[in-house]
């Protein structure tokens, strides 16, 4: 707890916020800019290489449906999720602008993830190594240059996960506000975010129990404050769609990139399982941390386990495409849920080794596989 003496000599709660690192605003902004610039550069390279970002093009099409100030609103159901459509409309449908916006968002998100690792006491080398797995490998660049919606969804997921941890463990209602609002905004941005919202709400009571707060009232309240913004947003959107549109669920049905349960329920389940397994194999950080936790404190794996189930469900339902997203989400889960607190020198060294291995695997998979990500990487690199 911070302890400024008086309520009135101006107290500055940001100084004491756990996520505020670096503490000097100029340094913080400098870090954000430094982390965003490579993504700007890669976005420009991607355009220069003539790559067509299909997901962003689809978003631009959805944004084109928005008619500002229209009182008919018959198109309202078709633009779901509406906030990302509105963003695309505001950006004039420019896919380059979308990539640049993604870079800016990543500047903030990566700074926050760095701050979390600093808060957890990983030390400079381990922190740099873990963040390096994200900023020195292609998946996140691919997402930033091609899929603004998914990137915003992941950024909000990071915000929500970080908030949930502080909310339920430290009873920080500020963090609870942040997590709930992040999920509320996410469901209006990313068609797959509702699944994340449900998953995180399912995880929350386990956190609460670890924080010594149990009882169904506490669990119910925890879930309610986390889910309310998301539920309210979707409910209101359905009401508005029902009122103005002939097909209120049309937008929801079109929310998946390749349709619901692509290839059928069974095939989709098998594909999702394969993708998750491959992503886990490509993420030694997650594997090592999970193994350590399984030995030392198996109960602490419940929350990441449920999050993993949520990830699997999103793939199975077709709400997420592979192309590195699963791997990015797993790495973010590592930072937010699995990274050890105040590790000793040996564990720090292990983290660095795992991170370097993950980095190498990341490149190896991208360059040797024939997937979209590999094709894009080669196109950008001029290969």
């Amino acid at each position: 707890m911070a302890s400024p003496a008086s309520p009135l000599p101006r107290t500055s709660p940001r100084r004491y916020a756990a996520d505020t690192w670096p503490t000097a605003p100029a340094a913080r902004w400098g870090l954000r800019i430094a982390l965003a610039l490579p993504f700007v550069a890669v976005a420009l390279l991607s355009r220069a290489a003539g790559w067509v970002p299909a997901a962003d093009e689809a978003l631009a099409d959805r944004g084109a449906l928005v008619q500002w100030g229209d009182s008919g609103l018959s198109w309202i159901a078709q633009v779901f999720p509406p906030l990302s459509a509105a963003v695309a409309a505001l950006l004039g449908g420019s896919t380059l602008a979308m990539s640049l916006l993604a870079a800016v968002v990543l500047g903030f998100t990566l700074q926050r993830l760095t701050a979390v690792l600093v808060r957890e006491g990983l030390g400079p080398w381990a922190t740099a190594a873990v963040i390096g797995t994200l900023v020195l490998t292609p998946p996140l660049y691919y997402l930033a240059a091609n899929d603004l919606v998914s990137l915003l969804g992941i950024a909000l997921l990071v915000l929500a996960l970080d908030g949930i941890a502080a909310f339920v463990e430290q009873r920080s209602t500020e963090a609870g506000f942040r997590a709930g609002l992040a999920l509320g905004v996410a469901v209006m941005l990313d068609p797959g975010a509702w699944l994340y919202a449900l998953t995180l709400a399912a995880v929350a009571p386990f956190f609460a129990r670890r924080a010594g707060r149990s009882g169904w009232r506490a669990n119910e309240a925890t879930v309610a404050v986390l889910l309310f913004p998301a539920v309210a947003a979707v409910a209101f959107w359905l009401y508005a769609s029902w009122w103005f549109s002939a097909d209120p669920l049309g937008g929801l049905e079109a929310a998946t990139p390749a349709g619901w349960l692509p290839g059928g329920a069974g095939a989709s389940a098998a594909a999702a399982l394969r993708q998750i397994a491959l992503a886990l194999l490509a993420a030694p950080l997650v594997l090592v941390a999970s193994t350590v936790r399984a030995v030392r404190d198996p109960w602490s794996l419940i929350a990441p386990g449920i999050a993993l189930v949520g990830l699997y469900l999103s793939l199975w339902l077709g709400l997420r495409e592979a192309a590195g997203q699963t791997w990015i989400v797993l790495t973010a889960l590592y930072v937010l849920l699995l990274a050890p607190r105040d590790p000793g020198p040996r564990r720090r060294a292990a983290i660095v080794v795992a991170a370097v291995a993950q980095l190498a695997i990341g490149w190896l998979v991208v360059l040797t596989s024939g997937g979209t990500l590999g094709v894009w990487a080669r196109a950008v690199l001029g290969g």
Partner: protein
Amino acid sequence: MGDHLVDRGLVSKATLDAAERVAADSGAYIGQVLIALGALDSASLTRALADLWGLPYVVPTRITEALDAPGVDVGRVLGEQWLPLERRGDGTPVVAVVDEPTPPRRAAIAAALGEEPFLVLADRWDFQQAVLDRYGSDLRERASLGLWGRSPSQSARTVLVPWQRVALVVALVLVVLAAVADLRAVVVTFSVVVGLAFLVGTGFKFWASLRGARMEHVTRTDAAALAALPDQELPRYTVLVPVYKEANIVANLIGNLGALDYPAHLLEVLILVEEDDTETRAAAEAAHPPAHFRFITVPAGAPQTKPKACNVGLEFATGEYLVIYDAEDKPEPDQLKKAVLAFRQAGEDLVCVQAALNYFNADENPLTRMFTLEYSFWFDYMLPGLEYGRLAIPLGGTSNHFRVSGLRRLGGWDPYNVTEDADLGIRASAEGLRVGVIDSTTYEEANTSYPNFVRQRSRWIKGYMQTTLVHLRQPFRLVRVAGLRQTLSFLFLVGGTPATFLAVPLLYAVFLASLLLDPQQLSFLFPGWVLWLSLFNLGVGSALMIYVSMMGAFKRRRYGLVLWGLANPAYWLLHSVAAYKALWQLVTKPHYWEKTAHGLTGVSAAAHVPPTVRG
């Protein structure tokens, strides 16, 4: 002094020794300690002091003759603590004092009277009663018209000043003319105004609440500094308890305030009883309050309001700091000490600190649940958020702790404003002073009755309307002195709150209409952006306000109340009923004080507040 008391047989040697130890530790006078311990009553002590100082002892209330002393008014009598009583047979004026008659004091009295006085010693409480008897009408006038006399523009005695009346009439005429020319345009404009009022009101509250949430991990009072605060460094503290028609609960306040962790000899609890309310006074006296609890009879006369009673109490307050509690309030025991620390660590411009209010009967019925949700959000998020931004804070009904000198500088409470507390907080900001918050809670009784709730809320909302009108009388001065941010926050919060509640039924009507009609049928009233604004308000504005109230309950760990936040739209409808009643009353009886009945709860405070508060 101690030996003198023992010699007179008033206290035993053992008691004296014990009291001397306390006095040495606390820096208090031995007499004060003996009274606080209950070893001696105030009158006996005064008699002994009179004997020691060679003065006659008098009970001034027994002297019916009033000495006419030109130039000596009640302000001077209370400020300098001397009261002309009568003339002796030789024509010498007899003057009652309550402290040692030092030569400078004697000289000052002689200078004021123009002749040498014959001094007598009176007990402090008898002295106050004598002042009330002698100057009752003057006190009533000062309490009622003091602020008005000093600064009419700051008083709600007049609802609208001339330019406001002219502006209102001109606006009405323009609206009528516009309606004749283009009714649809007027209705659409009205929709826009209502929508914007709702948007700004709710948006500002949500923004301030988010900022307030940031403050939750900032410890306002350093526990070590609080624990280390020695008694001898504590100042005298006055507690005002205005009561009216509260015979059923007034006895509780003795237990509730008796639990305060503050040296009794430094505490003065003034129970302000209206002159016509003999029942409450009798009930309070029957409860045998301790020596530091005293009664002040508030002289009858219009307006018969709580702020008028508080102004009378302020005249008699001898504390460096002052706090107001209601009869049923149960403050956390260390609240006064936290306030002292807050005042000491801040500058002189800090005139007031507000403690949080919450309810001990939260789970009694749906209304008390909603009330608790609302207060949790208001006091735990809103006010800290306003303080964080150094914005104007409208004070809550009780548990406002004042620096007495600052309060007097502000002119006390406006007895014509029915939310005198909110008005005072805004007036402080408008005068360049500051209001803060402390991390302490007072538990109160939530309203359990719906009609009682509407009455209470109509008064609060009417008071916010009055306050808005009062402080907008000199808008440019307000901006110049308080600053643009303060002015806007005042407008958004104090002006925005009634506006939001007035707008709620219209928004709900549109929502209901949307369930029955096609969009095209309403499009003439909600063209283009007006529709977008209304939809945003309905969806986002309402949801955000529900959300902060859910969070407020969560923060207070009242988990069972969190889902009750979903009932907020129904709760706002109740507010709307109260808001329209308030608007009507603002026109028909602006100064009428809708009395809130207390003591309706079937829940005991002691069983439902956190253990630290039970005392």
